[in-house]
């Protein structure tokens, strides 16, 4: 399957040896949105989360401390850049690397929060992400062994052998677990209960966009 059929008219390519970055409206849209969000995250303050206090009529204000703010902001910016890289890369191994990096950063963004339920959720998500890194990289390795290349432009022009299909299924499983989307989202939802909206957005955004990109990559490789 060619890029233009999936992502719209091809604007151009940027070759790096056999790895070719291809620029379609679809890839550029995802890339641009992620960069815009990353810039907004870099310049935004965090909100003060107002919560009801049990047993009284008072409210509790939950804020993000300065040290925690700095840690979470830098991790969020790196996560945004890594996700943007995953949107535009033309190499299957680079995509899996970006995916693994995003999974680690997602945990890192909430790891400095001092709420037990949030840390529990991050721990559970971390376990799933760690387990799913095996099929993620294993799938890419199987495709490399079966075809001799990880370049998406070359893979898109090759017929899919049974081993390539097996590798693609493993990558899908790995991406689902690493990004923590359905059916693994239950482990991740509690992570969003803490304050720090600009940092939480990148956790959700990176997961969704990487899933969309994974769909494009799998269709390129399989069809």
């Amino acid at each position, binding site marked *: 399957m060619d890029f233009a059929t999936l992502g719209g008219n091809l604007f151009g390519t940027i070759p790096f040896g056999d790895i070719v970055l291809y620029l379609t409206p679809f890839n550029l849209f995802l890339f641009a949105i992620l960069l815009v969000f990353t810039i907004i995250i870099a310049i935004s303050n965090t*909100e003060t989360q107002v919560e009801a206090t049990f047993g009284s009529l008072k409210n509790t204000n939950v804020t993000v401390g300065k040290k925690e703010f700095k840690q979470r902001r830098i991790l969020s910016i790196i996560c945004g850049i890594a996700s943007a890289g995953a949107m535009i890369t033309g190499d299957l191994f680079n995509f899996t690397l970006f995916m693994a990096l995003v999974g680690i950063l997602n945990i890192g963004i909430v790891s400095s929060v001092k709420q037990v339920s949030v840390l529990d959720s991050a721990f559970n998500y971390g376990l799933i992400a760690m387990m799913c890194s095996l099929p993620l990289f294993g799938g890419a390795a199987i495709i490399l062994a079966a075809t001799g290349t990880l370049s998406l432009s070359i893979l898109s022009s090759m017929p899919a052998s049974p081993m390539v299909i097996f590798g693609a299924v493993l990558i899908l499983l790995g991406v689902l677990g690493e990004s923590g989307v359905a059916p693994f989202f239950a482990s991740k*939802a509690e992570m969003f209960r803490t304050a720090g909206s600009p940092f939480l957005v990148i956790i959700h955004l990176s997961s969704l966009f990487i899933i969309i990109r994974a769909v494009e990559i799998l269709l390129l490789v399989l069809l």
Partner: protein
Amino acid sequence: MAEILIDVIVAFLGGSLLLGLHRKIMARVQRRPGPPIIQNLLHSLKFFFKETAFPKTASMPFYVGIIFILAVVWIIGVIAGPVTENSLLILFGVYAVYKIVEHNAGSSSGSPYGKMSCVRAVLSAATELPLFAAIVLVYAKTGTMNIAQIISYQGVHGPLVASVPLAALMFFVLILAKSPYSPFAITKGKDLVTGYETEHFGVLRGFLMFSESVAWFVLCWLFLTVFFGPISVLWLVVGLIVIAVITGFINATTPMLSPNHSVMTLITICCICFVGTILMIII
């Protein structure tokens, strides 16, 4: 450029009127007079002239920026959809950003209602499964993601709703999930006031309502175009009205599901329809 501007205005006006019709139908089913059909449009315009207030607890400039991103993204949706008839994947991306805004418009204000809506938005990401599955099935049937080519395919082979009806059903479930007062609209449950919109006033609310109107028009247009093939403007209008009537009737007679039930129902429908469609394509 003029075509883009005209299409955005048509999408806004059309979407507003359709949402107004949807609300009117819900009211009539419930034996209430209901507001005039034009009320949603008047509300949207009214907010642009209201005073804009910002909560002291809000995350600035994120709180403001995310609303404008939503409006820009749905304008891109109009360009990728009705104007250029480009890739379905771009519209999938547009819809994903819509989910992000649902998620973070709520949490950025600091309001507990917005925060609950935000957490539910994470759960309601399950609504993307029907969209994703429907797009993949359309691709499996037609061999293309390009909307213009899908229309051409249907011109030769007949409407896709006849050959992959379960995929069409899945897409319709997504539209139902995004309709106001839907049984799946857990992010805007009445227990959350207006969910992620609770703390957005004035111009910001105006842009939110503008985006929702455009989103409704684009989603319905996409459904009719992808599954009913090349249709004239008259049939498009008829189709849009029929969708508003059906979703209005369902929403008026169905209670809102709890978050867990909503997610499980969507995933179950998605799985059944996906497997069913695959079997139909193979057989």
